[in-house]
């Protein structure tokens, strides 16, 4: 095959891998709201920590 065909294949593979990495990172970093059935929560007191 011509050299530029290989170049395109390599670029496409890199782009796909980078896209997959970004998708995984977005999923790992995605925020949520977790209900903790065991948590007492308790009164918070920001600013009271010494």
């Amino acid at each position, binding site marked *: 095959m011509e050299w530029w065909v290989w170049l395109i294949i390599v670029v496409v593979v890199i782009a796909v891998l980078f896209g997959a990495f970004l998708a995984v990172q977005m999923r790992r970093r995605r925020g949520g*709201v977790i209900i903790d059935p065991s948590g007492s929560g308790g009164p918070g007191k920001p600013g009271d*920590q010494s």
Partner: protein
Amino acid sequence: MRASAITKRPVVTMSGEDVAQVKDIVYSAGGGAVGGFTLAGRGLLAGPMDKGLPWSSVKGLGADAVMIADEDAFEPLDQVLHTSSETAGGGAARADVLGSQVLTDDGTDLGEVVDVIVAVTDDGFTHCDVVGYEIEASEALGQQGTKMLLPLPDTLSASGEHLMVPASARDFVRQDLAGFGAAVDDFRNQLGGQR
């Protein structure tokens, strides 16, 4: 305020160092008090951190950042999450409520949770409590697909997939945050009066 407004906020120390960002909000099923936050590192390449931020260590929850004294405020993630396998009975498990179905105690599906409403109150101590769900309404509320705000009772009930609310919560549904605080108070007063 909506929980989605808090997630992804940077966590900043009093010395101005940007050390993390909020990933998840963790709240208690028994009362809805926010117990803390799980964290992710800063930058696109960073993943979730193995430390969490307890609410008691938060110095301030501002519009643009969560303020802490320093990185000593962080605690091991298990402490923030409370290891449910050790302390919870009945096989209850922690679960992300976003996407969960809301059911009334008479078995009516009210919709799916798309966000959570959090109220910060200061009565000497600063409390952060979950007071409502923003739901994508089902047919039962008469406006299917519309986003609506549903007040919550003091004590929440949830399983892995379903969040339970009293049937009377339907009467206190609102469409925007203005007046929602009053709706929550009225709803809880009504529940209190029934006890």
